């Protein structure tokens, strides 16, 4: 019963957080003078999609086409379990929380690939292989970027990592790790400028080309939710999580997450959509060496600085 309650609380928090991200995106598009529309439009879009017919293309893979949005949502819900909003405010706290989180990101990308592949269309197939490029692009950088905080905290538990930043946030002495993490996080969440697999005009919606109605809504929710979760994990790893003066911990955590999300979304406005081979180049030729440099630096600093962090 307790487990059920916790799960429901986590899902509720996730739902509210996803709505906040959707509002944030609308504010970016519309400007700060259209706040009212920014708050109501995501709900209106959701209702409109709920009313829309659920089409299944002829020849679509029976299981994969229908299951892809649910797999994406399931992954998102499972990863949300290890995000602590405050001290001991966590759904599931294994000692390997961070590792569990990183591992569970890959089925999300696989769900996107399944969505494209199962549609029985060429555009879907092209976008599937673009999503496959994402799969091989994000894994190594995000793993290496996360190793920095793990080495400093000497733990894989998300709560321990936050608690070990009581003296100094990791962003101060691991800025390279933060940059690598944020880029890899954008790969996973298919966020602009790394959204060629969803390329609206190029491939007619990419992996979502044939989806409509509720399934499309679930995908959009899953995308926003994974972005939220990745940003919140970034706060946990580099910005001290819920720590801050005066305000309660969970509120700090939410504020920091929204600010980081807004910054990332705003920075993306200046960049064009990158091709998937550019993403691969970025990942393997730039981020991988950079993350090795980061590990070297963090290791040296961890050994040299008394106390280890």
């Amino acid at each position, binding site marked *: 019963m307790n487990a059920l309650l916790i799960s429901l609380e986590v899902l509720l928090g996730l739902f509210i957080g996803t709505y906040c991200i959707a509002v944030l995106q609308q504010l970016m598009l519309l400007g700060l003078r259209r706040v009212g529309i920014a708050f109501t439009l995501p709900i209106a879009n959701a209702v409109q999609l709920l009313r829309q017919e659920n089409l299944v293309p002829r020849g*679509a893979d029976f299981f994969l086409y229908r299951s892809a949005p649910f797999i994406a949502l399931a992954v998102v819900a499972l990863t949300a379990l290890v995000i602590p909003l405050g001290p001991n405010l966590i759904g599931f706290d294994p000692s390997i929380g961070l590792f569990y989180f990183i591992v569970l990101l*890959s089925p999300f990308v696989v769900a996107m690939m*399944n969505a494209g592949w199962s549609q029985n269309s060429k555009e879907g197939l092209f976008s599937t292989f673009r999503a496959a490029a994402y799969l091989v692009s994000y894994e190594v950088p995000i793993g290496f970027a996360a190793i920095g905080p793990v080495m400093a905290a000497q733990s894989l538990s998300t709560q321990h990592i936050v608690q070990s930043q009581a003296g100094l946030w990791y962003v101060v002495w691991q800025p390279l790790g933060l940059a690598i993490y944020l880029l890899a996080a954008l790969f996973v969440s298919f966020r602009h400028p790394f959204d060629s697999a969803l390329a609206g005009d190029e491939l007619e919606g990419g992996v979502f080309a044939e989806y409509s109605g509720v399934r499309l809504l679930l995908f959009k929710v899953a995308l926003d939710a994974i972005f939220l979760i990745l940003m919140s994990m970034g706060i946990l790893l580099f910005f001290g999580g819920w720590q801050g003066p005066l305000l309660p911990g969970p509120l700090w955590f939410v504020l920091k997450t929204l600010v980081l999300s807004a910054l990332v979304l705003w920075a993306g406005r200046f960049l064009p959509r990158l091709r998937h081979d550019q993403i691969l180049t970025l990942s393997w030729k730039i981020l991988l060496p950079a993350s090795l440099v980061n*590990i070297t630096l963090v290791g040296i600093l961890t050994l040299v600085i008394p106390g280890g962090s």
Partner: protein
Amino acid sequence: MNGIFEWIIFLSLSTIAVVTAAGMILTMSMYRAGLALMASFVALAGLFILLNADLLAAIQIMMNVGGMLVMVLFMVMMMIDPGGEMMWGMKRDMHMPGLAAFSMHMPRGKPPEEESTQEQPGTHQVNDWTCPMHPEVQQDHPGNCPKCGMTLMQAEAQQSVQETSNQSKVYTCPMHPEVREHQPGSCPKCGMTLVEAETEEPHQADTLKTYTCPMHPEVQQDQPGNCPKCGMTLRSTDDTSQSHATGEHAGMSMEQGAHTMSGMSMEQSGDGHRSHDMSMPIQASGESGHDMNISQHDMNMFGMTPRQYYQMMVDMAMSTSQLPWAIALGIASALLLIVLVVQTPWPLAAGGPTQDATNAVGELLLSRYMIGFEGAAFLILAGIAGAVLLGKRERTQLQLQMPSPEPQASDAGEQTYTCPMHPEVRESRPGNCPKCGMTLIPAEETVGSQHKHGGHS
């Protein structure tokens, strides 16, 4: 956790693991097979979690999703027949039960004598064995060509074909009769060595044939291949045989279900696999449908000796004559493992893995063996930097060496031909690369073309 609840989870996960693993071998699609394998291992990861081995479960998922699925994807992208799906599906369509479902039966009986006792009409009694691709290779006994590894053929087999027909040679694939090339090489579909075929319509051997798709007549090209819209094998426009129009290719639809940016439906099978044309050139004879006795007709069809045909069937069987021994050994090993796991004759430690164990491992790695991490990171970095620097240096040197003038028209005897992809292949005459089948080009052109192929930025 409640005992009954645990049992329910255990049984569910176990069933999923077994069912999806079985599903892996029942599907023709490499992508689906990879996903099924992934699902099976994720279910196994769930079992690890039940045993409180979270770390192992996480590693299990990471390796299989991040590693194995990526491997599957690259196989789908790069290989002609990823995972042997085409061959496997072909055999399955021939309804081969039992062992033959995993591998064609080996040809029965003893291998025929190497020297052919069948007199070909109008041939000379020359005992030279030669390579279809390298006529300069001649020996007095059968074997494999030292240059390309092809099975040597009797010289009179080549001569008889030349004497009985004035048309240029046509080479075909034993598995894909629609593949017809004017030069020896490998089949573009399955990679098998092409063998000479009789041309039914000699006048058309030299004329350009047009190949079209039975379902999409608007697709036309001058060489055999697959339809880019639906994946079906293209047929010559002279071919009067009927296409496999129904049920042979997945996902063909022009109706509401699919569209393109224009709305014009041009979809193809989502798994992007090759033709599902399962026609077999060899009709098995004998009591069982898959008895591979050699028939005179089949041999003559490909101009092969019985020994050559036998060799070909051994290749196609994708098996070994030791298969029964291999199966017995596998079963014995599996039984031994099961007995060991059940009986566990070694001393057991008390209790199972705990959360502390993972912590302890983590502490050891991160505190005591930090130097190891640092060293490994440094070495990898040095390796990458070195590879990039050396690669640049090599490219610079190649650029400096690149000749600027056009290749001179020289005597045929002095001209060397090489493969753009395999510069180590050097031939004195034009033809196909024995490694990849690409058309050989004059050796002076290769430096420029290397740059052309290198630049996928």
